[in-house]
Every structure is written in structure tokens, then in C-alpha cells.
């Protein structure tokens, strides 16, 4: 199963006729050159032939530092698989900002709705905006779901879900999906939060653990004494939730420190790499001292000496304003065409080929001369 036909569950026959009409070549010709959507959206913001938008239908605050939104996407939404993320765009002070959030709900919700839990960061403009200003009726733009941090279609016999902080959301979606579909294998759910004040989904996790005999949930608080576990992730914590971690399909989402700690143990045990997702940008390290070569922006005709920073920043420093979103290599908004030169991906450390290709300029640093179509 890759997508859900939300349209068929959400809208009736009349809606289908309206959509058919809106997509007709005649209407497109009458609305030329702006397009039908640029008229319909002024009356009904969700009525689009192209593009996903959603209306916030419910807002609640599980903790002081988070907001949980229920969204009703329009008919262009193709659904998601548990573990994937969507780009959520909101306007903050006139500027449209996009951030990735993982839906936390079951991938087959009856009404096609989406649940997002957004944790605020002190510097997070979008997360703070949503916490403070999200109201029922607010419209947000969405991308289609992305990412391959997903449960395999053929469900494994044993699943281990490890998360930290706001990283609970994609594994929460996996857990809810497995529970909802009557998964009969063993599930271990290991979650870390700073303290009980910031712990998300506490009542629901207790209820799921009561209802599902083969699910074990354990939480650890890194800045307080935990209910079950104490301190940060350690090998001993595994046995609290899973009988045999070596045999479990493992999914980890959280800060780099947690991911590194789990990876180390998997490596010690000679196990294959677990599936990993992180939304906290690893502290991007730029080698500005050893930077060499020149960066040419072919379309604007500008050229600068390579400063060693990400190409997006170098372009901005050169006075360009390339499209961008997350600035952490996730959303692909900043994808630009490189016509020559090699770049290093600051997240993976990997080097690109020297030829033509699309690159994410927010996480690409030139290695010598680079030419970009910007």
C-alpha cells in the first residue's frame, strides 16, 4: 500500500463533478494565464486542482512546549506511510516558511485527517508560530509525504521503536498503525524525554500498552528520575521493552546523540544498521579555513571565492535569494542544478560526482571550483 485515496473517503459525487469541471481544459483556458486555482482559492482556500493544503480542525497542547494539530487536507493529498514526514508551510511575518513534521497518527485514519505534534524550539520560528497562533480554521500548505523511514510493507515479526524528544512522532505513527491493524508480533517502544513535563503522548501510550499484550513501553527522563528507566539510553534499557533486539526491525528517531548511542551498540553486536531519522540538524561543521576554488552562479553571472560555507549561504552572501526551506537537507526546496564541480554533503560527508546533477545547496559545500545554475 503506498497511498490512500482520501478523495473517495472524504468527498462525495458532487465534489467529483466540481473537481472534474475545475480540471477541464475549458476552464483552464478561461482562467489563462493565472490558472483556475488562483481564483478558486480566494473563495475556498482548499479548493485547488493542484497542491496540497489543509485546514486545522483541532488544536490542543499536550505540553507547554508543544502543540498538537489535527489537519483536514484537501483532495490532492495522497496520504502517507507511518514514519514519513510532510513539509508544512505557514506564513510568519509575511514570509512563507516550510518545516518537516512527521504525522503521528495511524496511516489509515478513517476521515483522512492528519495529526501533527510540533515541539517548539527557542529558535524555531515555525514551531513557535504554530504553538502561539494555530487556531481551528487556519490554512497551511503541505507537501506530499516524503521519506523512506517507513515500516516495511511485509510487517516484520518483531519491531523496536526508539525515540527521543520530538522524534517520538514518526514512531508514534508506526506504533498506532501497527496497533490499529492488529499486528500480532512483539513491539518494544523506548522513548526519552527531558522530564515528565515535556513527555508527549503519555496517556495514550499507557492505554496502548494496556490494550496490546505484546507491546511494552518504557520511558526514560534524561533530566529527572524516570518512571521505568533512568538516564540516557543504555544497553540495559533494551531488555525493558524487547526480548531480542538483534532480531527486531529497529527504527530510531531523535537527536544525534541518541542515534549514535544506539548505533554503537548495534555495531558492537555486529548487527546491520538500524533505520534512522533525525530532524535535529547535526551541528554542521564547515571547514572555512581550507576552502579553495571559486563558486560561479551562471544565471546571475556572479562569481565569488569559495568561503567554505554551504552553497546556499554563499549564494545569499553574493546577493542572490535562492528558494529554500528547511536549510538542513530535508525538504529539497533549495535543490539547484550543478553544471560542474564537486561538492561535499555536510551531513553525510560524502563527495558528489563532478558532473551535472541536482544538489541540495543548503547542505552542500564546494570542493574547489563549482558552477551552479543560479
Amino acid at each position, binding site marked *: 500500500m503506498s497511498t490512500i485515496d482520501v478523495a473517495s473517503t472524504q468527498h462525495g459525487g458532487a465534489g467529483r463533478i466540481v473537481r472534474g469541471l475545475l480540471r477541464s481544459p475549458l476552464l483552464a483556458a478561461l482562467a489563462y494565464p493565472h490558472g483556475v486555482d488562483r481564483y478558486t482559492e480566494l473563495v475556498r482556500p482548499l479548493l485547488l486542482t493542484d497542491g496540497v493544503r489543509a485546514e486545522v480542525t483541532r488544536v490542543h497542547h499536550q505540553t507547554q512546549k508543544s502543540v498538537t494539530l489535527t489537519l483536514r487536507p484537501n483532495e490532492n493529498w495522497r496520504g502517507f506511510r507511518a514514519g514519513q514526514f510532510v513539509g508544512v*508551510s505557514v506564513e510568519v511575518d509575511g514570509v512563507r516558511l516550510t518545516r518537516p513534521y512527521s504525522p503521528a497518527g495511524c496511516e489509515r485514519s478513517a476521515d483522512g485527517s492528519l495529526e501533527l505534534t510540533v515541539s517548539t524550539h527557542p529558535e524555531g520560528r515555525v514551531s513557535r508560530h504554530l504553538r502561539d497562533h494555530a487556531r481551528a480554521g487556519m490554512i497551511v500548505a503541505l507537501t506530499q509525504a516524503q521519506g523512506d523511514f517507513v515500516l516495511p510493507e511485509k510487517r516484520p515479526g518483531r519491531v523496536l521503536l526508539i525515540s527521543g524528544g520530538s522524534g517520538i512522532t514518526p514512531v508514534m505513527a508506526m506504533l498506532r498503525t501497527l496497533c490499529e491493524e492488529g499486528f500480532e508480533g512483539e513491539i518494544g517502544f523506548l522513548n526519552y524525554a527531558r522530564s515528565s513535563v515535556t513527555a508527549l503522548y503519555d496517556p495514550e501510550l499507557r492505554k496502548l500498552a494496556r490494550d496490546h499484550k505484546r507491546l511494552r513501553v518504557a520511558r526514560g527522563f534524561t533530566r529527572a528520575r524516570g518512571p521505568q528507566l533512568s538516564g540516557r539510553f543504555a544497553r540495559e534499557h533494551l531488555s525493558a521493552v524487547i526480548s531480542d533486539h538483534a532480531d527486531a526491525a529497529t527504527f530510531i528517531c531523535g537527536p544525534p546523540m541518541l542515534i549514535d548511542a544506539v548505533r554503537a551498540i548495534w555495531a558492537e553486536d555486529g548487527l546491520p544498521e538500524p533505520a534512522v531519522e533525525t530532524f535535529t540538524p547535526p551541528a554542521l561543521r564547515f571547514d572555512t579555513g581550507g576552502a579553495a576554488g571559486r563558486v560561479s552562479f551562471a544565471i546571475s553571472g556572479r562569481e565569488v571565492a569559495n568561503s567554505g560555507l554551504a552553497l546556499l549561504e554563499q549564494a545569499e552572501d553574493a546577493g542572490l535569494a535562492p528558494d529554500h526551506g528547511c536549510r538542513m537537507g530535508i525538504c529539497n526546496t533549495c535543490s539547484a542544478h550543478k553544471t560542474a564541480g564537486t561538492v561535499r554533503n555536510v551531513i553525510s560527508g560524502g563527495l558528489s560526482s563532478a558532473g551535472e546533477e541536482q544538489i541540495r545547496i543548503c547542505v552542500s559545500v564546494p570542493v574547489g571550483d563549482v558552477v551552479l545554475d543560479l
Partner: protein
Amino acid sequence: MSSPEPELTPEQLETFGQELDAIRARVVGDLGGRDVDYINRLIRVQRGLEVTGRGLLFLGFLPPAWIGGTAALSLSKILDNMEIGHNIMHGQYDWTGDERLNGKTFEWDTACPGDQWRHSHNYSHHTHTNIVGKDRDIGYGILRMSEDERWRPYYLGNPFYAALLATFFQYGVAMHDVEAEQIAAGESTLDEEKREKLRAVWRKVRGQTLKDYVLFPLLSGPSLPFVLAGNATANLTRNLWAFTIIFCGHFPDGTRQFTEEETENETRGEWYYRQMLGSANLTGGKVFHILAGNLSYQIEHHLFPDLPAHRYGEISDEVREIRERYGIPYNTGPLYKQFGSVVRKIVKLALPPLPGLRGSEPVVDEPARQARPQKLASAKTGTRKLSAAKKGGHEQPAPKVATRKRVAAA
């Protein structure tokens, strides 16, 4: 246009440029929700007018409906092209990150494809403003709008060509980037790039024609002739209006034109200086400025083409203060006056230069000559003399400016 040395010293030009940069930086730092709300509100008004206009024209057999519908559709096209399309395509709202307001992809309700406009206008015209031989907005390649262009008998038709261009302005603009007149004159060839541009123009014209002259008239059934006439009138009104406003931007008396040599190796300060000298403003009320796409603040627009245009009015006093301090004339006036001087220029330049009036030392008021730097004086007062001779005693801003200049220098 004789002397190549700058009027202001290089140091003055640099601080002049820095003062303007500071205005720009301040506005950029202040951009926010207010600007997005403004343009979105305007788009909503324009789309509302368009739908209302087209709706009313379906009842076009009733005279009030025809007049109302045609007026609404005319206003829609004017707003779409001027305050919305022209300004968005300058990238004035790119900072919003909203793809609907993206200057690189926006398309407008006129015959010229957005991509070609972005090249011919944003790049060619705004970079090479008023440089004779480089800025093809000087006369659009068909009119003689500068004394530096050699007169030919062809230009006897100058007023006629201008009227033709105004009537079919959207098609003139559409053919601008193809440089059709250069191809016709054998100065350029119809290479593959030009062919591709022509194909794009054809696609755009086809879409516009299909909508305005085929589909909406056919859909209206018995109202067909009324819809056809209404749509044609709306396009014509927009054409005449856009032509009028645009020709008032750089051709009224007192606007300066430049040679390529003068503008070689320009600094940023010199660039600002040229933009100021080459542009003219229009006075009017708030609605007038909006309908003019704020090109009535042509000077501010040419200094800061990528700032949201509704900000130009807010910074105009500051710009004017800086100009006065540096003794640069501020060319502004009501539409009838500015356009009147454009019309006179079109007529005057249809005729060959009269001996004794061109190339010779211009006759000017003594205070103006003393106070005004040579480069500016020779160009401006030359124009002044010619038009004054034509109209006889037509009042010019030059002496006033000269007085200000002297005060500033004192």
C-alpha cells in the same frame, strides 16, 4: 551630452550611493506581513473586478451592464499588469517564499510572455536605463525619442507610430524582446533563440486571444458582439493607460539620456545617479498611484526596482531630500503636464534637427549655467531650449533647480 566627467566628485557619489543603500537596507529590514497583505488584497480586488467584469458583459446587451463590465475588466487588466504583474515580476515579493508571488514564474494578463519581459525589462531596461543604443525602451526601436538618434525621413511618422504603438501596446511589448525591428532592418538575424522567443510569444498571444476573443464571446451566446467589444475595449484601455504611464517614466522634459561611453565602469553611486536623472515622477492621489503600478514613483522604482512598489511613496520624501542636497533636479508633475511634454517630444523629434539648435552651445538662463554642472546642463538645457522654442515660454523646472543647487553648494 558632451562631457564625460561626472557632475559630483567620486567621493560625493560614493556617499550619495551609501545614503540610498541605507534607505534600501532599512526597507528590506522592515518587510513583513503588511507587504504581503497589501499585494494579496490587491490580487483579490483584481480577480474580483475581472470576474465581475466578465459576468456583467454577459448581460452586455444592457448598456449599463456593458459600461460597468467593460470598466471593471479594464481596471482588472490595468491592476493585473501594472501594480501586480510588473511589480511581482521584478521580484518585489520573492522574499515571501510564496510561489504565487514569485517573480521568476509569475505570468500576467497581457500578450508579452513573462519570461521575455523579465529579460527585456528587468535586465535590459533597468540595467541600461536611458543609455541610447542600449536601452531599447527608448522608442521601442520604432520611435525617435532621443536627439542622439540620427534623424531619418522614416521618423516623419513619429506621432503616427506612437499612436499605433499606444493602441497595440501589449503587442509592441510582446515583440520587444524578439527585437523584431532589428531583424527587419537587417541588423539582427532570426536565429534559433529568436525563433524560440517568437514561438513563446505566439503561445501567449494564442492563449490571450482564445480567452478574450473566442471563448468568452462564444460562451455568452446572444451577447457575443457585446462581450467581444467589451473585451477589446478593456484591452485598448489598458494599452493606452500603460503606454501613457510608461512613456511618462523616462521621456518628459528634463529627463536625461546617456551615451555608452559616459556609463562605462559605472560605480553604484553613478548608477543611482543615472537612474535618478533618467526618470520622472507623476503626482496624484493614492488610487492614481495604484493604477499606475506606482510607476508614478518612477524615480524610486528605478533606484530600488525590487522593493515592493507600495513602499515608494513612503520613501519618496527621503529620496527627494537626498536629491536636493546633492543638487539633482527632482522631475515630477501631474500626468497632463508630463505626458504633454512627452507628446511634444514625439512630435518635435519627428522633424530633422534645426540648424543652430543642436550640437551648438545651448542658450540658457545665466544662473542656471553657472550653477549647473556642465554635463547635466548641456543635456538638459538643450532639451529645454528646443521644447521652449516649440511651445514658446513653456515653464521649465531648471532655473528653480539651479537655485536649489546653489543653495546646497553655498
